[in-house]
Structure formats: C-alpha cells, structure tokens
C-alpha cells in the first residue's frame, strides 16, 4: 500500500497468459488419463479403465441415483457450512474486537482445533442419534473452526492507520467497526470460508460412511461391499468435481468482493 505505482497501472492478475496455462492443465489431465488407461490395461487389482467408469456413470445418471446421492451430500455440506460460517464470523469479530471475548473463547477454540472434527463422530452419534443431525453437526464444527480463526486474524490485522484515519474523520466505534473493520477483514473472511468449505467437504464423506441412507460416501461404502470399483470411481470423481465447482464459485465471489485489494 505504500509503494508508489505509476498512474492507473493495474497490476496484471497473472504473470503467465491464461491460454498457455490452460494448455498445460489440459496436457496434465490427458497424461493422467493415459496413465490410468495403461494401468487398467495391466489389470492391476481389477482396476477399471476410464471407459468402464464412464459407462457406470451414465447408468447411475440414468437411474437418477447419482443425483440423489450428490444432492444429499451437497445439501449436508451447505447446511453445515452455512451454520458454521454464520457462527464463525460474529465469533471471530467478537474475539478480534473485544479482549474479554478473546479471553473467553480462545481456550475452547484452540482446544477444539487440535481435535479432528471426525473424532467427534462417535460422541455426536451417542448424543445426537444416527440421523442427519450428527453429520451436519460435524460438518458445522469443521467449517466453524477454520472460519473463526481466519476472521479473528483479519480483525486483529486491520491496519491501525486506517482506524486512526477514521477516528480523525469523526467515526465512533460502531462506524469504525461497520465501515473499516468489516471491509478490511473481508479478504480474510473469504479465505476462511474457502478453507472452511474444503474442511466441510472433506468431513462430509467420512460422516456419511457411518449410517447414512444416501449420499456419495454411503454409495461408496455400498459399492465396496459388492466390490463395485466402477461406482467407487464415479463417486470419487463426483466428489472431486463438486468440491472444485463449489471452491471456484467462492473464488469468483471473493474476486468480486475484493477487487480493491492490491494483488501482486
């Protein structure tokens, strides 16, 4: 922020032309597929080839099973992630803004951060039963813990000079909070949301391996029982692609909300 840039010089987002980067991406995917085909041709551990997996995917789409499972999983993640984020942002702000809130919340957050959310599953099942609630609870916990730390870091990292500038312009605490602290920590909140979503998504499948009636994790467990490797691959690829799509969506929102940031 202190370097003098030439007038109206907007720094380019990426060093390399996006075209050549995309080319490399496609090349990498093609090489990976080739390797997969080669390994499948060697019949290692009954590994299915891409074609067999694609065929199974078409079947699962046609029967509607893939949509039911994907939607069940996405819904769980979205609910858990939404609750986790909605709780994390105010908690992070409280911790960053008020010393007493930091003192009260920090020990718990630091403690629970060291416990993998999945380790809470047995306890959650005992207390919350085997329905939807324990699964969503674990996902909520995972995204909350990531987001709250990130928001807190954002709030305590707000440039002191900006706060002082606002004060000299007549702003009181409430205005400073709303018009300086919130926008200044927005990049941190969004980073927290992206990592939180990743945490939620990776917690989901494990949560679904236990006593779910539908969902991608449940589908994989069923397939494992019948040695149905094709279905496992379809579910895995769906998990990857859906997770990537959600991350890209958040990234696009992030870019729009933080255009003002000086990027290098």
């Amino acid at each position, binding site marked *: 922020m202190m370097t003098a840039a030439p007038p109206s010089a907007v720094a380019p987002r990426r060093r390399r032309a996006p075209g050549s980067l995309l080319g490399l991406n496609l090349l990498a995917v093609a090489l990976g597929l080739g390797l997969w085909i080669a390994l499948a041709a060697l019949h290692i551990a009954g590994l299915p080839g891409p074609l067999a997996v694609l065929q199974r995917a078409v079947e699962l789409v046609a029967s509607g099973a893939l949509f039911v499972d994907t939607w069940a999983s996405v819904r769980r993640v979205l609910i858990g992630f939404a609750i986790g984020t909605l709780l994390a942002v105010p908690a992070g702000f409280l911790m960053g803004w008020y010393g007493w809130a930091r003192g009260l919340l920090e020990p718990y957050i630091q403690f629970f951060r060291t416990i993998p959310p999945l380790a809470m599953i047995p306890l959650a099942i005992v207390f919350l039963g085997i329905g939807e609630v324990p699964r969503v609870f674990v996902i909520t916990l995972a995204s909350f813990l990531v987001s709250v730390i990130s928001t807190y870091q954002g709030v305590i990292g707000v440039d002191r000079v900006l706060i002082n*500038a606002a004060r000299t312009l007549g702003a009181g605490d409430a205005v400073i909070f709303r018009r300086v602290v919130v926008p200044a920590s927005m990049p941190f909140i969004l980073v927290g949301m992206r990592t939180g979503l990743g945490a939620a998504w990776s917690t989901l499948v494990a949560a679904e391996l236990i006593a779910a009636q539908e969902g991608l994790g449940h589908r994989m467990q069923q397939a494992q029982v019948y040695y149905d490797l094709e279905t496992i691959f379809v579910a895995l690829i769906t998990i990857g692609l859906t997770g990537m799509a959600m991350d890209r969506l958040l990234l696009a929102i992030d870019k729009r909300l933080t255009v*003002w940031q000086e990027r290098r």
Partner: protein
Amino acid sequence: MSPARPPEGARSLSEGRAAGPREHPFSTPKIEFDDVSCSFELKGEPFTAVNRLTLTVDDGEIVTLVGPSGCGKSTLMNMAAGLQDPSGGEVRVDGREVHGPGPDRGVIFQQYALFPWLTVRENVAFGLEVAKVPRTQIDDTVQRCLRLVGLEAFADALPKTLSGGMKQRCAIARAYAMDPKVLLMDEPFGALDALTRVTLQDQLLDTWRQDARTIMFITHDVEEAVYLAHRVVVMAARPGRLFKVIPVDLPYPRTEAMRLSAQFLQIRNEVWDAVYHQH
C-alpha cells in the same frame, strides 16, 4: 476555490478567515502545547517521547517540525490530533483541551491511510457521511475538494490504481472536506519523489493562501521545512524536547526563485545546523 463548508453550522469555524493570511507575527493562539509530556512503554522500557514542551501555533500560521528520529515530533502531533493522550500538561486547540480525535482537526498521514475498498469520491465523502450531512451537500463538497486537489477525473478510481502523489492528494481532499480548523500533517510528502513533492508543496501553499488554515507539518526534509513555514521548530531527542525555533522571514507567496535566494539558503543552513549538530 473556497474551503468546503460543513453543514448547518455544525462547526462554525471559518469566521474571520476570509481576510486571508496575515502578516507574521500572529496574535490568536490556535494550537497550544502547555508544558506537555508524554511517556509510554517501548519494548518493556519506559520511554519519554516528549518532555515538558511548550509551544504555541497561531491562527493561520504554518509551523514545520524537524528533528532526529525519536525526538517526539509524531507524538506531539498525535497529541494534537487526539490519538495520543499526554501524560502531563495540556494540549489545547482553540482554547479547548483536546479529548480524543475529531473532524475539527484534519490529519494527513504519511501512509495516505485511504480506505482501499472505497473509490476516491467515497473516501472524500467518508467523514461527511459519518457527520450525516445531506447527500446533495456531500456531493457538492466532494466535487469542490476534488477540484481543489485536481483529482476530479479520478473520482471513481480505486486507490490501488493511483500513484503515491495522487493518493496523498486524495487524503488531503478528504481532510479539507471536513473544513477542519487545523491541518496536522505527519511527513505527508515523505514517500513521494522530489518532483511530486515540490508540486504538492506549492499546491498546499496555494490553498493556504486562500483559506489561511493553521498547519502543523512534520518533515525530514530541511528545505521543505523552510519553504513552507513561518517558523521551523527543531526538536531534539532523548528525551523529545524543543531545541530551537527558527523564524523564516520570507514573504508569501513563496516562489522557485526564492528557493535559490541567498536568504533562503542561509535559513536552510541554520536549520540544517540545528538538526544535525545538536551538541
């Protein structure tokens, strides 16, 4: 180009300023440091930033502060701004003791301190919006202040697209928008290249000749200190205190020719001596 006026006489402060700059010496005290001290903990050790300093800046006067690092010049300014409480003595602006920051004292920071998520226009409007000034009045004032610093064409630009000089002009426009009684400037041109610095110095003096606003200006640049000021205040460090006050007996408007005059150089050398040979 009159200074922007605040709404409904909320800050009645411009009376008697229309007369323009008066001749030195001045009569009405504007900023008073009355036996002021300020000490705080620095890296676990007690540190006296300012020790029993008394200084008066008069209404319409430009005073520049120079001195080695650690001489407390920024602390002095922060006390006037209300960002730092004195641990002894009293700071008064317009005869009233300073309690916390307020829009009657415009502060310009070296780091510009623009809100990066707001456009130039929104930055300048910030203080007026906080004061709940009606929208049309805000628009007028912002327009006038942007014209004053020559940034109308960049009203909708984000700070990240501006050069350092333009950022600082935006910050100055933001301070003018509140029509403050005094301008407190903490090395405002320190991060700029020499050419831009000279341009902004002249722009500042141009505006001052119209509104005769009291200015307290910190700098490391001895020439800048002499060029702008009625009086150059040289401070000394450990503990921060007043070392020497050097009057600049040169008329306004200050010109380029004046910078090269023997009289200017003589004052410049005197200030230089006071800053760099304090023993």
